[in-house]
């Protein structure tokens, strides 16, 4: 064993990372080498002094509660064959898959009865994938299973009054995660606010409740005004639009559900009279439906699920103001600005989701470069948020969709290289 080798392996020796033979080799060199001996002694001394740092500390009581609640809820979901956020639908609705989807129109929605013997008809609709939904809602219709069966053929189509209320229990994983992220934002923004003369951030309490809306605070007033104007004039001007329906001049009522679905704190009383039964899909409970989308736009890619974190329309509870159409290019600018804002606020999950929406819009505006860069930013933000799997998916999507945008692609790859979780760890190394 050379001196250099020994020097290199002193740390491994100290931390027990050498096999017995190698350890013996290093030890025997150290014995005869003053320099190594000194270094080893210093190393050990520092470790002894730092020993109290090794002692385990326990988080406060109650730490587990929320995690376990989330874990249980998620396990149950997975076990039921659904992935993602739950929408509970109770009642009698004919094309039920569609009606469930109406509540939150993005992502593949799977709706089916979980227990046939239950008096009430319970449907879980999972909003696909880990990108996940912004809010879990319960649709409640006061009919029984029996009534549903009887009504299925004729009556049900007409009994379409929904009461929508948010899922209040904190066991929803996504809402828990959002809370956690919001808390970080709140902590961060609060400090910033205290430090600067002109507070750039809303108070943390409000932020926690409505971080998404708050992040866009500067735009709200204008938007709202514009919307009111739009509504009163009844014309489709070029207005920035938050909710990404981005269908051409959609009558506002039709987009009702999206705004509702995104508002985790929507008042329990919020009632939505559903629009006329959708002509689109089958009544099959298994039918993946994206009704609001379907009614406005026939085919959207599976990427729709990412719409989830689009900022809630600030005027939740007032559905008529939710959907306003604009040109994709124009809307993209607004979404990009929001994305950047969220990113600077450190809310990477939200920023990523906004960037992806912006990418869609750019794509529709035939702006390939813009779309590719937005996806690259999304990859960066997802990586920063620790969502590597998702980041990789977006990176792959970027590579697949815009193979010519090499600069954006390499930016995305760079972002992932930094944070990519370990790939199959080589257990053995060949010397």
């Amino acid at each position, binding site marked *: 064993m050379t001196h250099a080798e020994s020097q290199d392996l002193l740390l491994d020796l100290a931390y027990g990372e050498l096999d017995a033979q190698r350890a013996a080799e290093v030890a025997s060199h150290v014995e005869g080498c003053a320099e190594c001996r000194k270094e080893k002694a210093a190393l050990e001394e520092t470790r002894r002094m730092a020993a109290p740092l090794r002692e385990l500390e326990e*988080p406060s009581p109650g*730490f587990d509660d929320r*995690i376990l609640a989330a874990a249980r809820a998620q396990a149950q979901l997975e076990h039921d064959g659904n992935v993602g956020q739950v929408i509970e639908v109770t009642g009698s609705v004919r094309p039920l898959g569609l009606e469930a989807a109406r509540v939150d129109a993005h992502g593949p929605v799977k709706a089916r009865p979980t227990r046939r013997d239950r008096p009430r008809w319970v449907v879980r609709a999972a909003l696909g994938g880990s990108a996940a939904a912004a809010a879990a809602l319960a649709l409640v219709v006061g009919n029984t299973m029996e009534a549903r069966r009887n009504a299925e053929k004729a009556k049900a189509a007409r009994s379409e009054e929904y009461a929508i209320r948010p899922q209040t229990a904190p066991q929803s994983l996504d809402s828990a995660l959002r809370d956690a992220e919001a808390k970080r934002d709140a902590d961060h923004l609060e400090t910033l606010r205290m430090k600067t003369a002109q507070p750039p951030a809303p108070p943390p309490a409000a932020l926690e409740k409505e971080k998404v809306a708050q992040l866009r605070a500067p735009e709200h007033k204008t938007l709202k005004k514009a919307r009111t104007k739009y509504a009163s004039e009844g014309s489709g001007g070029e207005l920035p639009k938050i909710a990404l329906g981005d269908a051409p001049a959609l009558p506002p009522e039709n987009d009702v559900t999206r705004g509702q679905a995104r508002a985790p704190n929507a008042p329990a009383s919020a009632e939505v009279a559903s629009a006329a039964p959708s002509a689109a899909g089958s009544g099959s409970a298994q039918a993946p439906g994206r009704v609001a989308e379907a009614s406005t736009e026939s085919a959207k890619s599976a990427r729709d699920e990412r719409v989830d974190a689009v900022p809630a329309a600030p005027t939740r509870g007032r559905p008529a103001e939710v959907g306003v159409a604009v040109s994709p290019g124009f809307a993209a600018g607004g979404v990009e600005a929001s994305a950047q804002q969220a990113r600077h606020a450190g809310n990477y999950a939200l920023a990523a989701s906004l960037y992806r929406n912006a990418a869609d819009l750019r794509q529709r505006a035939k702006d390939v470069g813009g779309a590719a860069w937005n996806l690259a930013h999304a990859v960066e933000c997802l990586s920063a948020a620790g969502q590597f799997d998702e980041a990789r998916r977006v990176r792959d999507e970027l590579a697949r969709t815009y193979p010519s945008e090499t600069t954006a692609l390499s930016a995305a790859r760079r972002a992932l290289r930094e944070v990519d979780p370990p790939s199959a760890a080589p257990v053995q190394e060949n010397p």
Partner: protein
Amino acid sequence: MAQERTDEELLAAYQQGDPRSFEDLLLRHRAPLFTFLLRMLGNRERAEDLAQETFLRIVKGAQAWEHRARFQTWLFTIARNLCVDQSRRDRFRRADSLDAEGPGDEPPMVDSVPGQEIDPSRGAESALLRPVLQRALLSLPTEQREVFVLREQAGVPFREIAEMVGVNENTVKSRMRYALEGLRKALAAAGVSEETAAEEPAPGVRLGRA
């Protein structure tokens, strides 16, 4: 008789819909993860928040998890990334606070609630020394601190740290050497040596940031 199940087995069972397995996982990793974050951040509340977020992310990603790396590596990678993120913000905030005058200046983020650190089962001198050590630790650059804490407290081998952090193993080890050296200097500056380590440190010992 029943052999203790590995983390990966527990996670696989959780994937199959058994929430109890996750409970076991949480129980097993809660304290190490929290301690890691506490050492990294020096702040109990934030450490708890991030630890909670880390586990929530695990829950969320559990279904898609594949046994390519150890569970522990995954767990600490998430926590580490959250931490790096947090440190960036703190740095930004500190830079911010330099411009601000007066009371805006924040004390170093070390829990200094009297008694909080004291655990009779661990010996008073260790408890008294820990805040000093924690401050010394916080004076290290983040990339050194994380390597030190991951290796020293969390027991993650250098090679896995390298994977987590995204640098090669030699870089990790050289960061570790710097960390140990920096810690040694910081402790010396605080009047802590191996001889005095057993004694009560001078009250109000504060370390400058490197």
